[in-house]
Each structure stands twice: as C-alpha cells, then as structure tokens.
C-alpha cells in the first residue's frame, strides 16, 4: 500500500489513490475533524484495499470506523443526530420542527410531535426535552446511515473506490462559471507555487485546448522546422500554387510550361513527386553549402588559434602599462567615484516659518504654564493621596488604565546624578562688625541653676534684653578666602582666553580660574567649561558639570559676600546657573538645598545661643534669589522652593534689625518673597509683619498707635527710630530711586545727607512693597484684619505729614488701595460633602448542599467523577448507536437477501417456465407424432 504523491490532499483533478485504511478521525465534541473528514470524503478518490475477510455483521461497524474502536464514529453520528434533534426540539413547541440543521420547516405535521409531559414544574431547571419529533429524527437517522453506513456496506467488497476530487464538483450552490473560475484560480496558484517564485518575467501561459497560445501564434508546427530562415515568411509562388492554387490553375500553367520541353504530359502525381524531389534537392544543396561554410569557419578558427599564439606574445608591456595606469587613477575618475559614493543629500523637513515657530513656542509655554498652575494649586497630590477609589462589590479589579503617569511633571528630564556635595560657601560674616560688643548683660544667675531651667519661660527677659547684642564672632570667619590670590599672573594672560578648560574639581580650582577676570570673561570661561565637558562628549562629564553647578553656586555666594559685592558678575553667572540647572535639575536642587540648609543651620545656631539672630550676609540673600530664579516659585509644594520660603520667613522674623544695612537686606528679602509668591498670590504674614516693623522704625517716638504691634514687629530698642530722618532739609533734596544692593553689605562712609536719603529710599521701597501686598491680598476674606495695624499706623503717619511729597503720595496710594478693598464678609459655608457610600464587599459564595448531587471530595475527585460519568454516557450512547447500526445493516441485508431470493425465484420460475414450454412443445410434437 503505497501512497501516491498528492494523495489525500485536494487535487482538483481526478486522481486515483491507493489508500490505507483511513487514519482514524477521532470523533470529538468539536466538529473540526468531522469537517476534515467530510472534505476528504468529498474530494478524495480512495481505493480501499479489499477486505481480508467477509465482514461479519457485528464486525462491520467496527470496520466501518476503520479501527478496532467502533465507538467514535457511532458516537459522532449520534452526536450529529442529537444536535439536530435538540435543534429541532428547541424550535419546537407549537412551531416548526427543525428538519435539517436549524432550517425551520413551516408546517410541521402535528402527528409527528411528541410532547413529554412534565409532571410538575421544577424551579430553576430548564426543560430540554419537552417536545420531540421522533418521526423526523428517525428519518434523519436512516438517511444519515444510508449515506454513510450503507455506502460502506455496499462498497465492502470493492477493491478501489472512485473519488472525484474535482473542485466544487459536488458542491451545491456553485454555479458552473464560478466553479470554473475557482478551478482556474487553483491551477494558477499551483503553477505559481511550482515555478520559481523569483522569476518575475514569467508570464502566465495562456492555453487553448491545452496548447499554449504562444506556440500557436508562432505556428511552429506549420512551418517546417528544418527550413531555413531566409525562406521563412516568403511564400514561393510554386509553393503557393501548390498549396493554395488549387488543382486546375496550377496544372494548367505547369502543363503550358512543360509542354515546350517535353511533350509528354505528366500526371499530377508525377508533378508532385517532381516537386518534392526538387525541393529535396534544393534542400540538400543548401545543407551542403551550409556545411561547407561551417567547415570553412572551423578552419579559420583553427588558423587563428595558431596565429594567436604568435600574436599573444606582444601584449604584456601594454598590460603592464595598463596596470600602472590603474594604480594611479585619474583625479577626475577619483572625483567621479567619490561623487558617486558621496552621501546623497537627504530630503529633510522643510524649515518652519517664523509663524509656526512662534506658534510652537506659544503652545509649549501654554503647556508649561498649565502644568505650573496645576502644581500651584497642588490638587493632584491631595486627591491622589486622600481618596482611594471606591471598590465596588462587582469590581473585578481589572480596570487598569495604563495611561501615562502624569504625576511626573518634569519637563526636562536629564538623568540622575551622583555628585558628592562639596562644602557650600560658608556664609561670610560681614555682619561681624555690626555685632557690637555691647555684651553688658548680667547673666541671670538662676538661668542655668536647676536641672529644669524652664528656659522657655525666660523669653520675656530675653526679648527685653534682646537689644543688647552678644559678642560677635559667632559665625565661622573662614568663609572669607582671599579672592585675589594670584590675579597678577593671570592678568597678563587674560587678554586672550584659551578655548578648552578642564572642569574644575573643587571650588578653589574654580575660584583660581575665575579670579581676577572681568565679568564677561568669567561668563565666557564658564560657558567654555560647559561646552568642553558636555555630557555627550565623555562619560564622566555629567558628574563634572553637576559639580560645577555646586561650585558656581558657592562662588556666586563668595562674590556676593565680598566687600563691596561683585554683583555684576553674579548677575551674569546666574544665566549660566540657569542653564546648568536645566541640564541637571536634581543635582541643582541638591546643591541649592545644601546651601539653604547651611544658612538655616547658622541662623538656628544663633537663635539657640542668643534667642535672636542677625541678618546673614548678602550671599544667603543672593542664593535665595537664585533659588527663585531657577525653580518655579508658584508650586504648591516644591523640594527647593518650600524650604527657601521657610528660610525667608525665618529671616524676616528671627533676625534683628540693627542698622540701615539690615533694613535693606530685610527689604530685599521681602521683595524676593513677594516675587516668589507673585504668581500664586500666597499669603505671607511674616512679610506684613516685617513691613510693619520697618514702618515703626520710621515713626517718631511716642507717636506709635495705641495698641502695640505684635511681638516680632515691635521696633526693638535700638532699631526704634532707625529710619527717622534726622534733618528735615535732607528730605527736600531726596529723589526716589532703586536701592543699591551694595548698601546691604554695609554703608559705612556716608554723609549725613546720604544716610537720610537712604532712609527715605528704604521707606519708599517699603511702601511700594506694601502696596503690592495690598493689591495681591485684597481679595482675601480677612484682608482688613490682616492689614489693620499697618493701616492705623499709616493713617497716623499721614496725619503727622513730615515726609517729602513723593512719599506722601505713596502713603496716600497705599491707603487708597486699602480702602478700596471690599470689606464685605460672606459667612463661611462648608462644602457639601458627598454622602459616603456604604462600603460594599464582594459577597462570599458558599455552595449550598443539594440533594442528589455528589458534592464531596476534592476538586480532582469531582473532575474525575464527572469524566467517568460522561464516559459512561458516551459509552452507552455509542452502544446504542452501534446497535442501531447493526439493526439498520440487518435490515438492509435482509432486504438484499429477500431481493436476491425473489430474483432467484423469478429466474427459477422463468427457467421452469421455459422448460415447461419446452416440455409442452415436446409433448405436443410427440402427441402429434403419435397421432400420425
């Protein structure tokens, strides 16, 4: 039993296949194998080997399946029927009984419907077999068996089976055109598959009656293949006459021709023979001629070969020259090659127009602004943290939304950092001078006596003694390093800057690099350092630049702490700091925080020691200012800005004002503070307190308002009257203008007039800030309670009216703004909170014991039991099917036998009949003879 190629597969042609007993199609619950089998049955021509033995009845079913297991096929059949039955039943009750598949039959025979009466309805049980159609299903079973079992039975003794595998031959509902189309497509496909798929030039071959149309067009078969090319296409007159001229005409001419030569007329046969002989001769001649030519050519070739050896000696030199030329190619060639290999210009996006650029920029800014506002309101963190989403009882917790996490707000992500924090600039103590040595306080003897000294209760004493300053030198004075070391050497070289710089490894290195240079040069230098160690150039550059930020920050602090402060350079370097910060936000934030912590630590130490601190140097203020420039100050919470805000608040409340520089510093802190909150409009009570304090300093003695101001705002001892103008005539010559920041680090050499002018300027700035406060806090609900003390003071000051008109205008302006604010108070109302839904939990499912169901045992046990049950059912069903098969077969065999018997009887009868007739005739003859 061999298998022919292509056996079993769809072939689309008639094929005869000697086939082994079919691989057992395993009947399953799924219909796939069955489908496959059906397909094969439709298309496969299978010749089965003849059965080894006559099939006994009972074994037939087994053989039908093709294997020893009779069950599967029967089961499949049964299943088919069952399905049909159930499909029919489903449509049942009054309606049409399904005949085949689910196709409804419009008018069922009511006598065929059998209703299985339910004795009582059971709740929750679906009646599946309430209506049956026994007749229909029986007919269907018989039909099915007729198609399958009976056919096999009939073919049981056949050695081969005819299988028509033509595509769509037996498919119903396929029109002939369609069928042809499909076959054609299939053929095309097969052909295509067979040939080289890489051959693109191959056209499909069109045929006509199985012959290639191309061949037909060439008329290969018509034209004599041996004839020469010259003759092709040219029809000789003879030939034409012979072929197409017909008999008469040709013969007539020939006859007239030949009549002159030979009288003897030739018959037509002779003529043709002559013609043939002639043409054959011509042909032979031509052939000989060709052969001669060929011989000649060969001879020529041989001669040439002989000569070639002689000729071939010459070329070497020429070849060598060629080689030399090759070794030294022409410049032009080179250029051509190069041009050929040169990268072609890639098409790029077109340049954007300015409008588009502006639009993009605007969109970017808008996006950033929206993000900023969101952070300012700080809503996302609150809600995210506060309320976990409600979990429904039916929640399968599969509602993941893998959207982008929008909590990462960083718009410029640039990696992490691992920079070791260098020491930050020690705040230099330029205020050391101001800390006079008025250490006259008598130490409270009981201050440190008891173990519990209740130091918090000593505050009264301390606040009253606060005006006496403790001994100076509290701050580390080491922060002041000689900034001008070695500038002399550098000075000459600084005329031309080198272009590459290594990133400095320490702050000292940076300092020595920058020392003694002009601000522009410093800027350029830092920029070059940045460019030389751009992170994309080398691996360690990122860490270097991150460190550079820290050094720069420190250096800026030192510049600010100088006397006089080099603020111009600071101003330039801020831009560099900003750029570096954009590159390394985390490192920058760490460095700034470090600096802030340092400042706070110093202040905290002073407060611990003396209860009150003094204003730090300008460097701290500059750092605070820079922090506000580098980071968004309006955020609800920001890792750098929030501490910076606290730091400023501490500066404004804990630091004592001892002189004009302190006032300037305080005012600078105030304006920085207001800049911080300018967008978010947040409330800063300390700021108002400090401004009030400054106003009190400008108030003449004994003219303060009735109610003393709050504690930190109290103009303390020495600072009282600090801003009083000592001479009236100076106020006339004063002109308003910006406060120079260098005053903050001490304005020692001042004439009396200048001092008075400075006072007035401070006052003007204070009023300006106050006005700004009023404007931004106006909408707050308790605005008047907030600004009450300031208002009272201002009104009194105004009444006093000792200040120049510009200031008077400022007073007026502030007061007018204050009065303009709406004082109406709407009573507070809580937000209506949503009713909290009851917490629902997913119900716990407990299986209720049901009678009649086996429930015990583990999961595996149950599964096993289920399978056993199912197997038993299947087994029973298969047995039943087999039994029915056998009945069917028996019926068929019986019918066959009966038919055969009847046939035999008929034949016997006929024979008897004949014999009887013969007998009768014979008897009649005999009788006749006897009669004779």
């Amino acid at each position, binding site marked *: 039993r061999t298998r022919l190629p292509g056996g079993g597969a769809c072939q689309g042609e008639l094929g005869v296949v000697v086939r082994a007993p079919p691989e057992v199609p395993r009947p399953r619950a799924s219909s796939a194998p069955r489908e496959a089998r059906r397909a094969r049955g439709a298309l496969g021509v299978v010749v089965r080997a003849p059965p080894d033995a006559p099939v006994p009845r009972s074994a037939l079913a087994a053989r039908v399946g093709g294997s020893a297991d009779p069950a599967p096929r029967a089961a499949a059949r049964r299943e088919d029927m069952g399905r049909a039955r159930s499909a029919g039943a489903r449509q049942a009750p009054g309606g049409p009984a399904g005949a085949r598949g689910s196709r409804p039959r419009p008018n069922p025979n009511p006598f065929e419907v059998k209703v299985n009466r339910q004795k009582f309805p059971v709740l929750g049980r679906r009646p599946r077999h309430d209506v049956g159609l026994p007749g229909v299903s029986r007919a269907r079973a018989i039909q099915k068996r007729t198609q399958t079992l009976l056919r096999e039975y009939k073919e049981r003794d056949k050695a081969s089976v005819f299988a028509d595998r033509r595509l769509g031959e037996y498919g119903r509902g396929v029109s002939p055109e369609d069928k042809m189309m499909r076959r054609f497509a299939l053929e095309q496909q097969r052909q295509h598959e067979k040939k080289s798929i890489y051959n693109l030039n191959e056209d499909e071959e069109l045929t006509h009656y199985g012959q290639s149309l191309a061949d037909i067009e060439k008329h290969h078969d018509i034209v004599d293949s041996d004839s020469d090319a010259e003759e092709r296409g040219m029809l000789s007159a003879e030939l034409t006459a012979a072929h197409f001229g017909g008999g008469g005409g040709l013969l007539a001419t020939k006859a007239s021709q030949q009549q002159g030569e030979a009288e003897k007329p030739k018959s037509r046969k002779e003529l043709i023979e002559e013609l043939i002989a002639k043409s054959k001769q011509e042909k032979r001649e031509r052939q000989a001629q060709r052969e001669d030519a060929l011989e000649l050519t060969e001879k020529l070739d041989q001669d040439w070969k002989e000569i070639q050896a002689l000729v071939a000696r010459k070329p070497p030199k020429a070849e060598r020259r060629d080689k030399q030329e090759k070794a030294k190619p022409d410049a032009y060639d080179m250029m051509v090659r190069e041009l050929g290999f040169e990268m072609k210009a890639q098409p790029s996006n077109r340049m954007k127009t300015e409008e588009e650029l502006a639009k993009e920029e605007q969109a970017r800014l808008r996006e950033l602004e929206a993000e*900023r506002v969101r952070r300012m309101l700080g809503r996302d963190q609150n809600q995210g943290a506060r309320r976990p989403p409600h979990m429904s009882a039916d929640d399968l917790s599969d509602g993941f939304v893998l959207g982008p996490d929008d909590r990462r*707000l*960083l718009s410029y992500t640039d990696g992490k950092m691992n920079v070791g924090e260098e020491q930050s600039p020690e705040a230099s103590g330029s205020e050391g001078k101001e800390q006079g040595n008025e250490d006259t306080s008598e130490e409270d*003897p009981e201050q440190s*006596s*008891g173990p519990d000294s*209740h130091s918090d209760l*000593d505050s*009264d004493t301390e*606040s*009253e003694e606060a005006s006496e300053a403790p001994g100076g030198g509290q701050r580390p004075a080491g922060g002041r390093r000689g900034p001008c070391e070695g500038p002399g050497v550098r000075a000459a070289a600084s005329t031309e800057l080198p272009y590459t710089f290594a990133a400095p490894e320490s702050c000292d290195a940076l300092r020595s690099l920058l020392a003694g240079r002009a601000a522009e040069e410093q800027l350029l230098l830092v920029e070059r350092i940045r460019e030389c160690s751009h992170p994309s150039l080398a691996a360690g550059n990122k860490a270097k630049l991150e460190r550079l930020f820290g050094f720069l920050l420190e250096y800026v602090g030192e510049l600010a702490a100088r006397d006089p402060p080099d*603020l111009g350079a600071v101003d*330039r370097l*801020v831009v560099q*700091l*900003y750029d570096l910060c*954009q590159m390394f936000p*985390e490192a920058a934030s760490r460095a700034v925080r470090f600096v802030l912590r340092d400042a*706070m630590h110093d202040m*905290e130490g002073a407060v611990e020691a003396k209860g009150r601190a003094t204003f730090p140097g300008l460097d701290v203020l500059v750092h605070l200012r*820079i922090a*506000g420039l*580098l*980071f*968004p100050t309006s955020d609800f919470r*920001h*890792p750098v800005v*929030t*501490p910076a*805000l606290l730091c400023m*608040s501490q500066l404004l409340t804990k630091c004592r004002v001892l002189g004009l520089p302190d006032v300037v510093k305080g005012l*600078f802190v105030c*304006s*920085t503070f207001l*800049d911080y*909150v*300018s967008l*978010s409009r947040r*409330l*800063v*009570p*300390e700021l*108002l307190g400090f401004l009030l304090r400054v106003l009190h300093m400008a108030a003449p003695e004994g003219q303060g308002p009735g*109610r003393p101001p*709050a*504690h*930190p705002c109290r103009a303390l001892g020495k600072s009282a009257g600090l801003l009083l103008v000592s001479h009236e005539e100076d106020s006339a010559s004063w002109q308003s203008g910006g*406060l*120079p*920041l*260098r005053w903050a680090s001490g304005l020692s050499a001042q004439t009396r007039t200048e001092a008075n002018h400075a006072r007035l300027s401070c006052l003007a700035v204070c009023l300006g800030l106050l006005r700004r406060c009023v404007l931004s*806090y106006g909408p*707050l*609900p*308790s605005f008047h309670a907030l600004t009450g003390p300031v208002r009272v003071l201002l009104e009194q000051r105004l009444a006093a009216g000792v200040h120049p008109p510009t200031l008077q205008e400022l007073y007026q302006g502030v007061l007018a703004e204050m009065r303009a604010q709406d004082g109406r*108070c709407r*009573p*507070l109302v*809580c937000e209506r*909170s949503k009713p909290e839904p009851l917490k629902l939990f997913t119900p716990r499912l407990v299986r209720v014991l049901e009678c009649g169901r086996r429930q015990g045992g583990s999961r595996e046990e149950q599964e096993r039991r289920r399978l056993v049950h199912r197997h038993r059912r299947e087994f029973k069903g298969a047995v039943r099917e087999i039994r029915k098969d056998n009945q069917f077969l028996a019926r068929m065999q019986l019918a066959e036998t009966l038919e055969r018997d009847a046939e035999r009887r008929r034949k016997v009868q006929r024979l008897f009949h004949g014999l009887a007739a013969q007998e009768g005739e014979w008897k009649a003859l005999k009788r006749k003879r006897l009669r004779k």
Partner: protein
Amino acid sequence: MERGRARRALGRLLEAVLASRAEANAVFDILAVLQSEDQEEIQEAVRACSRLFGAMLERGELFVGQLPPEETVMAGSQGATRKYKVWMRHRYHSCCSRLGELLAHSSFKVKELALGTLMKFVQLEGAYPLEKPKWEGHYLFPRSLFKVVVGGLLSLEEDCSLLLSQFREYLEHDDIRYHAMQATSEAIARVTDGHPEVSWSARFGGRGGSRADAEAGHRQVPLAFWNNTFTLLSSVSLPRQDSAISSFYVQRPGGMGVGDPRPVQLDPCSFCVLQEHRKAFQQMWLSFLQHKLPLSLYKKVLVILHDAILPHLAQPSIMIDFLTRAYDLGGALSLLALNGLFILIHKHNLEYPDFYQKLYGLLDPSVFHVKYRARFFHLADLFLSSSHLPAYLVAAFAKRLARLALTAPPEALLMVLPFICNLLRRHPACRVLIHRPQGPELDADPYDPGEEDPAKSHALESSLWELKALQHHYHPEVSQAASVINQALSVPEVPIAPLLELTAFELFEQDLKKGSESVPLEFIPAQGLLGGRDSLCAQYFTLS
C-alpha cells in the same frame, strides 16, 4: 609629715581628754585648731571634735538642763563634777557655734564635714537629751542646735545649693523634715524682720534692675538667701500617706540603741501626724511666699506649684493671693499662675469667676513668638478641654486665636490651626463659625478684637475668615491644615501634643527631606539676578 604629726597630736589630745577629766583643758587646744586657716587642719579638728563630743554625749558627761552661765558656775561652790559638766557643755556649745560658722566656709569639704558633724550631734543629742524632759517619755528634739544648722544653710551671702543637696538626704527622715520646716519658717521670719522688702525694680529684673539691686543691696534681703530658701523648700517633699511617717533620724531617749525605733503609735507627738506636717509645710511656704520675691523665683515656684506644693497644702486655697499677684505680673508668669488657679478651681472647688477672661486676655500677638509657646498651648488646651464651656466663650477663643494666627509663623500655625479645629470639634455649637448656611452678608467682621470680655466680643456672630485667608498661606502644610474647614470637620480630635514643640528649623528639615522626587524647573529663562522687568527686585533694587 606635718599633717600627720598634727593629726597624731590631735589624736593624743583627744585620747587624753577622753581618758581623764584632768586633761580637760586640752579641749581648748582642739577648739583652737578649729579656728585655723588651713582647711586640712580644720577637717582634722572637726573630726576630733566629732569623736570627742560624741563620746561625751554618750557618756553623759555634758550638763543636762538649763545651762547656767559659765562664770557663775565656776565661781559657785557646786561639785567639781557639775562644774566640769557645765564647763564641758560650754565647750560643746562653742564648738557647735563654730561648726555653724564653718557651714559658710569657702571649702566645700569643710562645709560638708561640718554639716555631717552637726547632724551627728543632733542625732546624739536627741538620744541623750541635754534638757530634762518635762514628763516621762517626752520627746525632746534638739531644736536650738538644729536651728543653728538651718541658719547656716540659709546663708545670706552665698549660694548653698550644693550643701543643700547634701542636706536633702537628711530630709528623707520625717522628724528632720518636720523640724526643718519649722526652723525655716522661723529663719525666714527672722531674716525678713531685719530687712526691708525686695525693691520693685529688682523684682522685675530687666534693665537697670541689677544696678538698683546693687544700690539697695545692704538694705534688702539678698537674692542668695531667697535662692537658698527656695532650694531648701523645694527639696522638702511630703509623703502622700499618713502611715508613711515612720522613719526617724533622732532616736528616743531611754537608753535604747540607735537601730531600735520605738513604735510610733505609742508616742502621740505632734510630728507623727501627717496633718501636722502639712500645717508646717503650709506655714513654711506661706512665710516664704508672702514676701515679695524676685521674678525668677516666682517662675520657679509657679513651675513646681501645681505638682509639688499644692497637693501637700492643708488648705490649698490660701494660695490664691499669691497666684493673683503672680498673674498680674504678666507674660509667662500669668500663664503659670493661671495653671495654679486652674488646679485650684478644678480640684479644690475654688470659685474664680474671671479665669477664662484672664486667659483670654493672655492671648496677644506675641504668644506665637515667645519661647513658652508650647507650654502655653499645652495649658490652654488643658483649660479649654472641658466640653461644658459656654459656646460664646469657645467661639471667642477660636476667633481670637484665628485673628492672632494671621501674624503667626508657619510652625505655630501648624499647631494653632488644629487647635482651633479641635475647639470647634469639641463644641458643635461653635461650628457656625465655619458653617453658616443662611447667614446674611456682613459689611464688616462683627468680632471686636479690642474687647476684653469674651462674652461681649460678638465672636459667635462672626466666621473664621482668617482660616479662609490662611488657606492661601505660602507653606503647603499650613494651607492644607487650614483647608480642613472646607469640609465638615471629622469627629476625632487631632492630637496637638506632637505639634507643640515644632520649631521652624525642624519644619525646614522636614521640607528638605520631603523633596526627593522629581524637581520641576522654571521654564522662563533667567535674565539676571534681579529677574525680569516685572519682578519687584528689579523694580526697587539696583545692582550697583
């Protein structure tokens, strides 16, 4: 070498005196060494005296009874034994007075030794009384000697706190404590009789106070005395229960051994009853507190008042005068005084009508900036913890605190905002302050901040707009804390204890630590130190 010889010489003298009465004059030599300048010698002499007179007392070689003047006895014709005893008693007397003087010696060792010796004498004198008991079993405490001890301890000139801490050990004993209390009262009376009151300028400390002190130093009771007295007084602690009075330092006369105390019940003497102790305690403190003390002492007394003094007083309400006076001093003292008053009201049924008004008066803007802020709010929380306070009062407090919060630093705000919310939680009637659904719109805040009486401040008609304003505070946590009032207040109170001690620096550190996540950046490029044109710094400051 020298020292060893001196010690041996003293030892010899001692042996001699103890051996025979004939050598009695050697006592003078020993006493002479007591006057020495060298502190080592003095110590030797003190030890010698201690042994000598200890032995004498035990032997009964000292005169018992009312001591006649030495001259009359010497001149008289009594028996030699009596003369000897009287003479020796006089020596003992002078020795004791010298030891009393030594309590003010510059060297602490000498002081300590002198104190120990004197206390030993006190013990021995109690066991072998030098006075005749008036009746059998009469218990005689050597008061006069003890008075010397106490007088020495309460020095006018110098600070005896170290010595007093030594003395504290003796105060463990009930009898010593009792008599110390009595002796102290007497000593205070004696000293203050001789001096005028402390001047007012000194009482308030502060500027110029020290100078005034120095001027009036010779007329006033010196500060050292008050300090010493306070140290002594504060180290007296009474037992809580009656039965605890059982440890005695001085044993009964009657020949029994030191380690054999007689049962207390048999001796109904005054100091065996706790009530008597309390009376003495009260008397002592009253005699101390009735004088005008320096300010610092007020503070110290008030700090221990509620805890160490008030529970032991026989009649605590008599402290009210003192407390009222202390309240008038202002500041932290007022608060502490209020604490005392609160205890009196709370535990001792004191009627004090203006208590809450006074507390209300203490709330001024400085309260958030003073160092005793944590204590203040702890106590205020305690005072306002009752849920039976009238609503108007609580509303006034809440409103006042909110008003003050407008000037408070963030660390104080973090504490006071939950404080206010707790008040509102405790008193649902006050919730109108944050939730007044159908209230009319007002032209101005009806609350009167200048009004001293909380009842007239119209706080209940107001609302806490201040908290609304603080929701815009620059510090995120403050803003969040203030935003609590936007929703209906949750039921459980927020514990404010952990917030009380919060300092700005801690807050700063917390904020620094929090910022570990991503760092948003400013997207507007920096244009220079002072910023762009619209920044205030650029507007008001110039770089040059």
